[in-house]
């Protein structure tokens, strides 16, 4: 307790030098927690978007379906196994049929995925109900805002779509954009058009067939849905999770740089302290302070830097982090354009463990870099320290 009081007295007495170190360390605290929170927020937000708009509570895949291999699409369609069909009937799952096709907006060819979905489905948060009640002769299509932007399509535009049916015969028809949806998930937006499932089944001559089925978040996935494969949310987000882990490793490097900067500041300050305060150190020894307590005093002084930094960080970083956790930070450009699923507004998430681990880590490192120069004091002869000489 005495060492703590003395260290605090010394720190406060040191004035500007102390506050500069405290400020630098507090920046480290805020940056590490903020960046981690942002990354955590990005991961959770993107996972939520994927679940809400794309994968629901999991999927059932046709045995031949492989989303990474477009060449499998031609063969990956079939009638739903009974157990899955039952879930579709009661509205806790929705089938999706996919085929490759081409569209010709403004006469230019664009390859697309044509996706058929039940207009009345409530399993994924897509405005598919806009596909129902269309009275025109063309095929009604729903596209995403990203797709509309790249193809310069707007509601009411008609264009030609061409596809290959179940028998390998090419066919074409006119489609009309009846709705443009704003959806944060480019994976249900870019390069695809959504049409009513039944209409697509007719176009492809695949009555009652689907490529995969999305289950609702509220239902339990069937463990054994016949010949189709069950894909859990974890399995469907695994690639994304791995990408995030890779990113996290890079973030860790940044944390280390922040920490190293703060640690160097404290270390430099402590080393300077030793040279500037060697006479004081000699006096402490002459007055009867054992070497161990002198080391303890200087180490405590260093450790207190991180405590004061924590308080300072809470003062200015707290409101800032609260703001980023409630309002989010708008991103300067659309990451969908470079094929990354990142929400246009990044809302940070700060779990309690993040605060605890960052505090412990920073305090530990700051204490270590305070201890190292303090050890040098222990080797200093009191007779030389008193006169201000360096040995």
């Amino acid at each position: 307790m005495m060492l703590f009081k003395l260290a605090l007295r010394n720190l406060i007495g040191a004035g500007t030098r102390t506050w500069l170190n405290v400020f630098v360390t507090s920046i480290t605290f805020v940056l590490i927690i903020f960046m981690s929170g942002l990354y955590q927020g990005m991961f959770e937000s993107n996972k939520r978007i994927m679940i809400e708009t794309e994968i629901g509570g999991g999927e059932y895949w046709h045995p031949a379906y492989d989303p990474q291999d477009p060449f499998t699409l031609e063969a990956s369609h079939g009638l739903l196994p009974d157990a899955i069909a039952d879930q579709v009937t009661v509205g806790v799952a929705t089938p999706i049929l996919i085929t490759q096709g081409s569209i010709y907006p403004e006469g230019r060819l664009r390859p697309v995925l044509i996706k058929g979905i039940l207009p009345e489905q409530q399993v994924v948060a897509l405005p598919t109900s806009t596909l129902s009640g269309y009275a025109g002769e063309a095929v009604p299509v729903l596209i995403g805002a990203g797709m509309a932007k790249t193809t310069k399509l707007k509601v009411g535009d008609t264009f030609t779509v061409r596809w290959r049916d179940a028998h390998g015969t090419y066919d074409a028809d006119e489609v009309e954009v009846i709705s443009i949806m704003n959806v944060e998930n480019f994976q249900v937006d870019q390069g695809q058009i959504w049409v009513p499932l039944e209409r697509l089944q007719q176009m492809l001559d695949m009555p009652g067939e689907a490529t995969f089925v999305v289950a609702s978040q509220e239902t339990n996935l069937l463990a054994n849905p016949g010949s189709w494969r069950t894909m859990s949310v974890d399995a469907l987000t695994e690639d994304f999770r791995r990408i995030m882990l890779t990113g996290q490793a890079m973030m860790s490097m940044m944390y280390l740089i922040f920490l190293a900067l703060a640690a160097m500041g404290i270390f430099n300050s402590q080393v300077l302290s030793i040279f500037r305060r060697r006479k004081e150190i000699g006096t402490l020894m002459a007055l009867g302070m054992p070497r161990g307590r002198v080391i303890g005093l200087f180490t405590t002084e260093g450790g207190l830097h991180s405590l004061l930094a924590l308080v300072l960080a809470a003062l200015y970083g707290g409101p800032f982090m609260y703001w980023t956790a409630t309002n989010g930070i708008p991103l300067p450009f659309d990451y969908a354009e470079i094929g990354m699923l990142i929400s246009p507004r990044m809302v940070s998430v700060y779990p309690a463990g993040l605060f605890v681990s960052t505090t412990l880590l920073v305090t530990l490192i700051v204490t270590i870099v305070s201890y190292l120069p303090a050890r040098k004091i222990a080797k200093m002869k009191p007779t030389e320290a008193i006169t201000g000489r360096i040995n």
Partner: protein
Amino acid sequence: MDDNHIVEIRELVKRYPVGGGHFTALRDVTTDVVVGEFTGLVGPSGSGKTTLLNIIGGLDAPSEGSVTVLDMPLGGKNHKELAHLRREGIGFIFQTFNLLPVYTVFENVEFPLLLMGMNGEDRRSAVNQALEWVDLMDKVKSRPAQLSGGECQRVAIARAIVKKPKLIIADEPTANLDAENSHNVMGLMVNLNRELSTSFMFATHDEKVMGYLTRIIHLIDGRIDEDEQVSKPKYREGK
């Protein structure tokens, strides 16, 4: 050790490594200091005054011979034991005051008592008493940078006496003071010596200090050249 002896030194030799060889700072020094003595080590620069004081204070170790201070033989003692001796039994006064710059006058004087683990009430009382001794009660909240040289040395004296040590070691205590302040601080120390029977050991070549000493040990080239008892110190009254 004689009950009356506070320091016993026998055949003390102190050598320092210099280049490939050694420099001998003290040679065959044998002497005793008794309780209540007001002793000065006098001699030219390099004669070994400060070295002898440092060894008596447990800040440096002898190369040969034995030194016993306050019944503790210093040979073979570790840093912790020597720190304990200094903390409990010895007060130090330095030429350059060596006050802790971020502490107030009160805190500087309080510091040795904090090290001793004295409780708050006793501590405050002892600090106030020491500050009254040196007539600095009006400066308790000042910091060393706000004090004159004489005031700083009075704070250093208060810090040395606050724990009522049996021995006070003062290395050139008046070297940075003018004549008036030198006499003031020496007067204070004489009073302490008389009223508390505190033993003082000085290293000095200041004539003013010598005028207060009751014993003068002359050192030349690390040897005791003369050990003189002063029956009537020049500036000391009523002896």
